């Protein structure tokens, strides 16, 4: 599996972006991105030129939209235009169904940014009655996302949903409107694909994101693999614990800061990896600058999900630099209750 850096939230003059799709894709290539999702506000008209531009720049363009509605901004990926104008605040599941039926997936954009009248409709106010309908949440929005206070409750929401047993993918989105390098470093969403060429496949990219096969990073590349019972599991996979109740899974952690592509030249040093889970923080693994790999054993007792966060220094300040989606652990079978004596 290879991890392909994508930017999943972008705008062009087809809505209110200031760079053309061609300009953005050229800049994306310069930053080390290999794909973008075109998510103009309420239109997919920009896709007419996507085929030509991805051929000339080598940067894949996946169709999407940002439903810029009165009650929240919802990203769609992999679907053509879908209708949003007839939905009230309690109708979002009807809207989500439209996107799913068109072959796409949906995610909440910047759920906790300021709403109207400061930023109209920017704060998520739709009633969600079934969270399993949601495919992803933009947990990291904007430049230097881990430092933005409005992203903190988004992370809390995601944790809560994971703890409740939902498998919702976390993504990063720059909300890219222009190519000026303002506001620090963007985080990329690295998507796990079988082949590099798969980045041009709408279906494969959508499937990988839907599965949770991705991590978010402002620089370091992370590779996380779990092994249990002779099988390997990657991000988004669900470890089958049924034959290893109370056992341990082996985590292989690989990290490469030198290929950091979204960092725009800032020096990035990872100082520790943190294993986070439904049981809270499991452990911190100190990381040396010359280190590229570590193995770690984790008890699967009570474990439902586990993710890896890389913390370190950017411009000498300590910040979270990367965060994976979870590897999930299936619940052990509930033992049959003993038959009561009659």
């Amino acid at each position, binding site marked *: 599996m290879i991890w392909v850096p994508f930017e999943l939230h972008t*705008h*062009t*003059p*087809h*809505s*209110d*972006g*200031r760079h053309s799709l061609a300009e953005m894709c050229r800049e994306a290539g310069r930053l080390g991105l290999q794909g973008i999702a075109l998510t*103009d*506000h*309420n*239109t997919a*008209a*920009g896709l*007419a030129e996507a085929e030509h531009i991805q051929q000339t720049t080598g940067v894949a363009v996946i169709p999407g939209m940002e439903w*810029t509605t*009165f*009650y929240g901004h919802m990203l769609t990926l992999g679907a053509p*235009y879908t*209708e949003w*104008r007839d939905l009230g605040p309690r109708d979002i599941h009807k809207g989500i169904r439209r996107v799913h039926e068109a072959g796409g997936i949906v995610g909440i954009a910047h759920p*906790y*940014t*300021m*709403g*109207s*009248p*400061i*930023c*109209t*409709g920017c*704060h998520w106010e739709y009633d969600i009655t079934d969270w399993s309908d949601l495919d992803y949440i933009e947990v990291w929005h904007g430049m230097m996302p881990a430092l933005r*206070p*409005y992203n*903190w*409750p988004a992370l809390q929401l995601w944790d809560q949903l994971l703890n409740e047993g939902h498998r919702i993918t976390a993504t990063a989105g720059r*909300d890219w*409107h*222009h190519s000026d390098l303002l506001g620090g470093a963007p985080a990329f969403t690295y998507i796990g694909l079988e082949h590099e060429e798969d980045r041009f496949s709408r279906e494969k990219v959508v499937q990988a994101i839907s599965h949770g096969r991705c991590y978010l990073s402002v620089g370091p590349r992370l590779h996380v693999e779990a092994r249990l019972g002779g099988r390997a599991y990657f991000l988004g996979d669900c470890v089958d614990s049924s034959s290893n109740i109370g056992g341990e899974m082996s985590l292989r952690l690989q990290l490469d800061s030198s290929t950091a592509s979204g960092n725009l030249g800032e020096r990035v040093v990872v100082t520790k990896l943190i294993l986070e889970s439904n049981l809270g923080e499991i452990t911190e693994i100190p990381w040396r600058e010359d280190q590229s790999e570590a193995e770690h054993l984790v008890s699967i007792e009570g474990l439902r999900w586990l993710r890896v966060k890389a913390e370190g220094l950017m411009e000498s300040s300590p910040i979270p630099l990367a965060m994976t989606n979870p590897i999930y652990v299936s619940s052990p079978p509930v033992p049959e209750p003993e038959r009561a004596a009659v």
Partner: protein
Amino acid sequence: MKKQLLAVEGTLTPLSSKSHITYSCLVDEDPASLDMEFRYTPKVMEDPEASRLLIWEAIEKYEAAELVELRKAEWERYMPLQNLLTLSVDDPHGFRGSAHRHPSEQRHMLCEQEASPGFLAGPLPSGIWKITISVHCVVTPECTYQLIVHKGGQSRDLGSVRAAHAYTT
């Protein structure tokens, strides 16, 4: 020859926020192009005291509890509050595009071969077309708008639309 199909205007108040106003008009023969002019005024709210009250209200509603006082103290960074109206178009068969952008004077064109950014080029079938004004936000006590639609215009001045991108979010 250029022919006016629709010329409407209206006055909105903050109560109009979060509503859609849809105009239907008959396009009775295949035109060479459709030309839409749309403007609204005012764009920004000038009254500082009224702005402060609205900004404080939004901060109390949306900001994390521990940040509310900090943000309220720096309320002027959210100035000026703005009205936001956007336009979208449906032909008799379905969606033809949307212009979600911030300038309060816009011009859009649709032709068979090309279209303004946000819209889809293609045949312009006769029948009932719909133009929707999405009232995302009206903060000022009143906001007036004007929408004029022509068919058959010869101008292909799409550049004027591009030049109007003064704002981004």
